[in-house]
């Protein structure tokens, strides 16, 4: 039941994509998202598709895992396609259905928007599938560090994210356990109307809150007794290092960007 949910959908592996520096991966994912919206031709999208397909192949993550992220968005994707197809003004009318004009421009627009959404989801899924939550927050912390000049609490933010991520599985396990314990006492979480169901959650939520507070208290105590005092002068055990494969990934991505810009704006 609840155990079946995987957090952050991380897919453990040893591929070159898994081993990339998380900072580089995050930055490249951002670049990828931006470039998706710059492409304007089918050739451009072909290039982007080839790029992401290559990355997926390198990552060794099964394609069905990548596509699973698309499932909940299927409705939005179809809706976006239809709206763009029917409501984009254009001159080349292919055919009409009742009051709707069906134009070449609309068709292009619809296909582009669909491709953008799909690529967006696939690109970001690839990031979360190949980066463990912990290295993800590590990467975010490092990337936000320049902002500390303006007193942005980068370390604290990253620590909070790390702790939150660390405790999601623990709390899920706890929820599962308490739920089962109450079911063993005849509690019913699955039937009844909305009001009854909400009421049935009380025996689950109260113990869960209490245990969350207890854990928070214990954790704070444990951190303090080990002299935690925020990010000041804190050194790390695992220092992020960029290696040749990171430069290679950046180079490939720069090539893609150059290709898209040339294709869409110069030629």
């Amino acid at each position: 039941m609840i155990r079946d949910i995987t957090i952050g959908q991380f897919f453990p592996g040893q591929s070159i994509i898994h081993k990339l520096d998380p900072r580089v991966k995050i930055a490249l994912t951002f670049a990828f998202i931006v470039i998706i919206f710059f492409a304007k031709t089918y050739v451009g999208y072909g290039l982007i598709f080839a790029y992401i397909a290559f990355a997926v192949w390198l990552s060794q993550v099964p394609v069905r895992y990548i596509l699973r992220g698309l499932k909940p968005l299927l409705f939005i994707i179809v809706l976006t396609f239809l709206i763009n197809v029917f409501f984009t003004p254009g001159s080349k009318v292919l055919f009409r259905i009742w009051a709707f004009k069906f134009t070449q421009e609309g068709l292009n627009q619809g296909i582009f928007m669909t491709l953008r959404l799909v690529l967006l989801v696939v690109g970001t899924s690839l990031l979360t599938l190949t980066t463990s939550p912990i290295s993800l927050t590590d990467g975010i912390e490092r990337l936000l560090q320049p902002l500390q000049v303006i007193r942005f609490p980068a370390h604290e933010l990253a620590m909070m994210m790390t702790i939150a991520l660390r405790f999601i599985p623990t709390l899920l396990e706890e929820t599962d356990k308490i739920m089962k314990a109450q079911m063993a006492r005849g509690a019913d979480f699955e039937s009844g109307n909305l009001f009854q169901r909400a009421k049935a959650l009380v025996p689950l939520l109260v113990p869960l809150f209490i245990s969350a507070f207890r854990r928070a208290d214990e954790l704070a105590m444990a951190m303090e007794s080990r002299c935690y005092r925020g990010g000041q002068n804190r050194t790390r055990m695992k220092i992020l290092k960029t290696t040749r494969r990171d430069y290679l990934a950046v180079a490939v991505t720069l090539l893609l960007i150059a290709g898209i810009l040339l294709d869409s704006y110069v030629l």
Partner: protein
Amino acid sequence: MPIVVEHLTHVYMPGSPFESLALDDVSFEIRDGEFVGLIGHTGSGKSTLVQHLNGLLKPTSGRVVVDDIEITSDSKVPKRLRQHVGLVFQYPEHQLFEETVYQDIAFGPRNLNLPEEEVERRVKEAMALVGLDFETIKDRSPFEISGGQRRRVAIAGVLAMEPRILILDEPTAGLDPRGRDEILSQIKNLHEQRGMTIILVSHSMEDIARLVDRIMVMNRGKIALMGKPEEVFSCVDELHAMGLGIPQITHVMRALRAKGMDVPDNIYTVEQAVKVILERIRGNRK
């Protein structure tokens, strides 16, 4: 109400990279009124197994039969199974949520839609069974009483369902020696006076050796050893290979025997050991 488990297999998260085989073709039977100890290392499948016995988990394959209720991978779990089989989880005090002890113990019976007089009778009885004084404790918050009392309140909450089979998962974990002895003697009473079938999950050999009729040892999702305590504890090497030990007193007796003292090596409680050693000493003096 016997329990029959046949070829029970359970796989967590099938088809994902986190897939794991928790139970692997487990078969056994438990007779009415038996007191069974279930031992195993962390992750050996003990908890998964007991959750099948009251339908919280369903088998991936195989079947579980409790009384006339059969649970297979696609059967619907009838509510009365949960009532027949009471399951006390590890650290059961973490499930307390009501404002008073009375309300919390009454949660189970109320879910059975019993009339309020019956609920009260059951709460009183359950509290008596675990040695809590009804009048002084019933209106207190479960969060202001001691840890040992909290655990007993939680156990009473399961007993108030009046199950005929009681499963306890590490009921003494984290209690001081006195609290542990109290809980164990109450469990023993439930078995002896009420004739309840009891399954005690534990990794304390001492606790189990003193109480149970039969021991099942689990290792990597399989039942590795099963039999009377003396039979199981005689398999020292197998137990060691699974990271389990034998009761300390059994070690002492084996050491004495190795030194040439004529004592049996199937002693597993201190009381037995005292008796045997005294007999030997008196025998020598004569």
